[in-house]
């Protein structure tokens, strides 16, 4: 794998950029792997990358039923932050931010991680109490957080509607300066290229149709490209986790919901930070291309159709226009849906299952993108060592039987 550098850019410029090496190979499946990762999204590719890099396990395949970057990794609103409430979640997401901070160098791939700050607005006294509590909890956990009043929010984002006569007036916000955005496709491509460079096989158009077991031990996966033998299978197939669990006769506390997002036509730079509001339910940032990236909510009903219903978009845009009246005549370019795994406590499930050699990483709900590197890092550890890392020990599926849930509905910022 040739490294990207100023010299390689110059060298390839001499041949009109027509001779760049493919970022990853497209090999034929081998008959056997040490580990098979089901799902070639960001989390799955990050898992494969860290399996190879941190644990020296390179005989790994990542199976993707579609194409790399075509699922939820390419459908989210690219926001990264770690200002969660409870210790377990904060430490997990904070690990992820720390990996984000060095990711472009580590992968030798520009993931365009931009720490432009994330504002979580409060519109009621109770919102502000919750925000103050969360900021304090973050700071006790060593995570940066600031509490802003309405004037400070206005000073930071001059185009925001700060009228006290608004239906939901802005009373203040939390600010995490180390939060921001990253280029989502680049994250998938960078991890794919990094994993491939370590010898991982990335198999696209390879759908898993069955999980073969011998007693309580996994022995392989049936795929659309034939049977693949392996004794360790890591499933990271957000949206379709329940479908894969059913192949192994497991039940999950997960329901799949459509989540929608949309982008506007490109406009001049006008919004330099991420603004989220759980109360009026909208979140927005401006991409480097200039388009406004807007996130809506999930549809209440379950669905796998990768599209949602119109009233959900209408509500999100009503909230955005209320917050930013200046955007009322901006036209929307594209709108799409992805399918998210929603867990009852708005926290993921990462860990072992009752079946030996079968590991699940799912339930990230509406906010999995921010966790991509950290999720892969802990899941790789879990698979390699056959036990969870201390960062994801609390996120086992057992919590739904012991009752030790990690309720992050508040910090999830948008209602799950």
């Amino acid at each position, binding site marked *: 794998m040739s490294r990207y550098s100023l010299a390689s850019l110059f060298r390839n410029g001499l041949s009109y950029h027509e001779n760049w090496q493919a970022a990853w190979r497209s090999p034929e499946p081998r008959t056997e792997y040490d580990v098979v990762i089901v799902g070639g999204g960001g989390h799955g590719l990050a898992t494969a990358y860290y399996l190879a890099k941190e644990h020296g396990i390179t005989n790994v395949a990542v199976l993707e039923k579609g194409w790399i970057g075509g699922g939820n990794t390419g459908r989210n609103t690219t926001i990264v932050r770690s200002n969660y409430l409870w210790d377990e979640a904060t430490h997990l997401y904070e690990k992820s931010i720390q990996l984000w901070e060095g990711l472009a160098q580590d992968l030798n791939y520009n993931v365009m991680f931009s720490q432009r700050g994330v504002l979580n607005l409060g519109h009621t006294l109770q919102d502000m109490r919750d925000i103050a509590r969360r900021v304090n909890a973050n700071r006790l956990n060593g995570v940066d957080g600031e509490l802003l009043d309405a004037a400070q929010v206005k000073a930071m984002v001059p185009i925001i509607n700060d009228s006290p006569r608004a239906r939901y007036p802005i009373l203040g916000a939390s600010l995490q300066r180390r939060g921001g955005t990253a280029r989502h496709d680049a994250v998938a491509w960078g991890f794919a290229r990094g994993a491939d460079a370590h010898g991982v096989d990335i198999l696209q158009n390879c759908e898993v149709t069955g999980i073969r077991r011998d007693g309580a031990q996994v022995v392989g996966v049936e795929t659309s490209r034939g049977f693949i033998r392996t004794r360790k299978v890591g499933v990271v197939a957000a949206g379709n986790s329940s479908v894969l669990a059913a192949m192994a006769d497991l*039940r*999950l506390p997960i329901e799949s919901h459509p989540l929608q997002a949309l982008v506007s036509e490109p406009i001049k730079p006008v919004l330099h930070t991420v603004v989220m509001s759980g109360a009026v339910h909208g979140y927005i940032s401006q991409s480097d291309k200039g388009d406004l990236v807007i996130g809506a909510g999930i549809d209440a*009903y*379950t669905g796998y159709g990768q599209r949602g219903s119109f009233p959900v978009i209408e509500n999100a845009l009503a909230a955005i226009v209320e917050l930013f009246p200046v955007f009322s005549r901006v036209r929307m370019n594209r709108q799409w849906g992805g399918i998210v795994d929603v867990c009852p406590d708005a926290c993921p499930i990462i860990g072992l299952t009752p079946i030996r050699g079968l590991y699940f990483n799912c339930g990230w709900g509406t906010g999995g993108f921010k966790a991509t590197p950290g999720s892969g890092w802990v899941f790789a550890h879990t698979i390699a060592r056959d036990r969870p890392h201390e960062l994801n020990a609390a996120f086992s599926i057992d919590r739904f039987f012991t009752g030790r849930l990690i309720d992050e509905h508040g910090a999830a910022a948008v209602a799950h």
Partner: protein
Amino acid sequence: MLLIECPWCGPREQSEFSYGGEAHIARPVDTDALTDAQWGDYLFMRKNPRGAHVEQWLHAFGCRRWFNVCRDTVTYRISAVYKPGESPP
């Protein structure tokens, strides 16, 4: 936007309804004898199928009555609606 046929009011648009999740989950009878695993299964575990799904809806901005809907979770097409207490067609 789904067009949902309330068994009492007829076809109305989706925004009049609220969703109530998987149907026919009966609360266990002998609750004192349940294990943690059985409680966890009843409270949290869901079928979440890709395809045919039987679910509950409430006509929240209408007659305010619950009913059941058979809906495909990929095409979102509704194949049947029926009242509580009736069996799925």
